């Protein structure tokens, strides 16, 4: 049997959101609160993940689907160890690297500096960074923009460069959160190839995408989330996607035989 890479055991994640609801958050109400010795009443707890358990293995590409707010991104952040669990645990073999749409690196630095510093931060030795640099820039396809500050990049360019940096090192576990959604067709093809490569290097990839085509093409497993719980999970990628579409009120997908 394959080695497990990620074990999620009865995971609960709770966000604490400050300054929403009831309290208007102005100065008088804050003072009143202190006088009455109340602790911030405006803390709202968002129970984003309510008990999930699953196992992912070496070489798996796991697609995570579900509506907005169903806990997909939270799940990835918990696997990456960025959100401590309220209850339960996430076990991983090695470190998980999270790649998200909003993961701006150092906005006011040039693309070049971002590549070098990003690689160094991931623990690559300077010589290795130097060797990998041309292929990273080439893969990202940002071209001459590499000498400009990253805040001047378009959304697509930024996410391409970030993906190129994060995938330069072979991670044991790569978590991709909608990071490929903003890329153009050519980049999407390249990044799929790179994800395949990572899987073959005996890693595990998690992919969150609203584009179900992408999941079908890339993943061998699917987890369908709804309101912080797993609805269905398994190897039957097409079956689960169809069930998800049906539940969401969409038409079942029409596939050519080549797809299946």
């Amino acid at each position: 049997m394959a080695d497990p890479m990620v074990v999620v055991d009865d995971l609960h994640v709770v966000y604490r959101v400050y300054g929403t609801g009831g309290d208007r958050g102005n100065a008088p109400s804050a003072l009143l609160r202190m006088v009455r010795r109340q602790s911030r009443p405006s803390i709202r707890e968002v129970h984003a993940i309510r008990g999930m358990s699953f196992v992912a293995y070496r070489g798996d590409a796991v697609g995570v689907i579900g509506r907005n707010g169903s806990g997909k991104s939270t799940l990835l952040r918990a696997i990456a160890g960025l959100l401590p669990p309220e209850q339960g645990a996430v076990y991983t073999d090695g470190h998980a690297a999270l790649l998200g749409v909003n993961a701006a690196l150092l906005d006011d630095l040039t693309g070049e500096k971002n590549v070098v510093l990003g690689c160094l931060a991931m623990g690559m030795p300077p010589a290795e960074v130097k060797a990998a640099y041309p292929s990273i820039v080439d893969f990202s396809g940002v071209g001459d923009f590499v000498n400009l500050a990253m805040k001047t990049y378009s959304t697509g360019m930024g996410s391409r460069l970030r993906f190129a940096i994060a995938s330069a090192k072979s991670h044991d576990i790569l978590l991709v959160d909608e990071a490929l959604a903003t890329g153009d067709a050519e980049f999407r093809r390249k990044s799929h190839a790179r994800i395949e490569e990572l899987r073959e290097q005996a890693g595990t990839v998690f992919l969150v995408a609203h584009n179900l085509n992408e999941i079908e093409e890339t993943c061998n497993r699917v987890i369908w989330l709804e309101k912080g719980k797993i609805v269905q999970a398994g190897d039957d990628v097409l079956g689960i996607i169809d069930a998800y579409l049906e539940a969401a009120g969409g038409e079942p997908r029409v596939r050519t035989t080549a797809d299946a």
Partner: protein
Amino acid sequence: MSGNGSLSGPGRLSGPGSLGDASTQPAGAATVRQGLLVDEPLAQYATRHGLKPSAARPPLFSYIAQIWQRRHFVVGFATARNVAMYTEARLGQLWQVLTPLLNAGVYFLIFGVLLGTNRGFPAGLFLPFLVTGVFVFNYTQRSILVASRVMHDSLPLIRALHFPRACLPLGYVIIELQQLLLSFAVLFLIVLGTGEPFTWYWLLILPVLALQTLFNVGASLIVARWGAGFDDVSQLLPFLVRTWMYTPGVLFSLQALSLTALGALRSHPTIAYLLQINPAAVYITLIRYALLANERAITAGTKPYNYRLCQIYRVFPVRNPYNVAYCHPIVTDTGLWLWGVGWAVLALVIGFIFFWRAEVRYGRG
């Protein structure tokens, strides 16, 4: 794709599923992978395969080793940030030198010219005294203020890449160190311009700055963890640090306050002692002593104690400023060095452990 052609139902419902579900499900090779669960308690299963909790902080020593391994990142990060800091200003990198100069100018205008706090100083000695104090204090001040926001400001980086988070406050102290070295170039010119000689004593600046840097790293780590937890810290801190700056020893002469007959602290030796051993005053006093020959001449305790000559200073400090050398110092030179080492070690050890203990929480925001 693995044999999905059949019309078999989708993977098993894990439902509200948790540990309980997993153990009650029928065991069997086919079901093991189908529902992405296994037929034994998951925690036990994970441990058996050598998996580690993802949100666990590394042991202290392997954490230190990880930081050492990222040293190129820390230095590269600091240098790149430093260069990028003034890219949008027309004068560009010139601001690295202009900022400390203007700072010194403002304080000289206020304290030297308008308020006239150079009482007790021979003419021309106040400017180097003041500028040294401002530049050295500025190093600690900026390290701490920047550190209070660093974890918050770097959230995208923290969430994108995995690295020991202590690299960030560390990097920002190095940014400030690089700026300090530039302001010291300015300081040397000012000091030489006021007629101070270049002496071997200047070499003593290096160990003092090294100690101050260690202290700043420790203090930054503490403040960085506070700032990551509460935004209020970065709001409140500037006021605390500014108050710290106005304590005697930084901009004002502590000696004039405690050793002269009319000084405000003349009958409060304990307060004078506490003010002198505060880290800012320790490092500033040591740097002044190393850099300024005139300062060495008017430091208490540099000559053997002489009651009569000291009394002359106490009563007529303005006319006999050099007599202060015959008085007992508030803290001896050796004492200052020991306090300097003590503060550095204390801040570094406490700061490091304090920061490390919250390592897994910094991405939370």
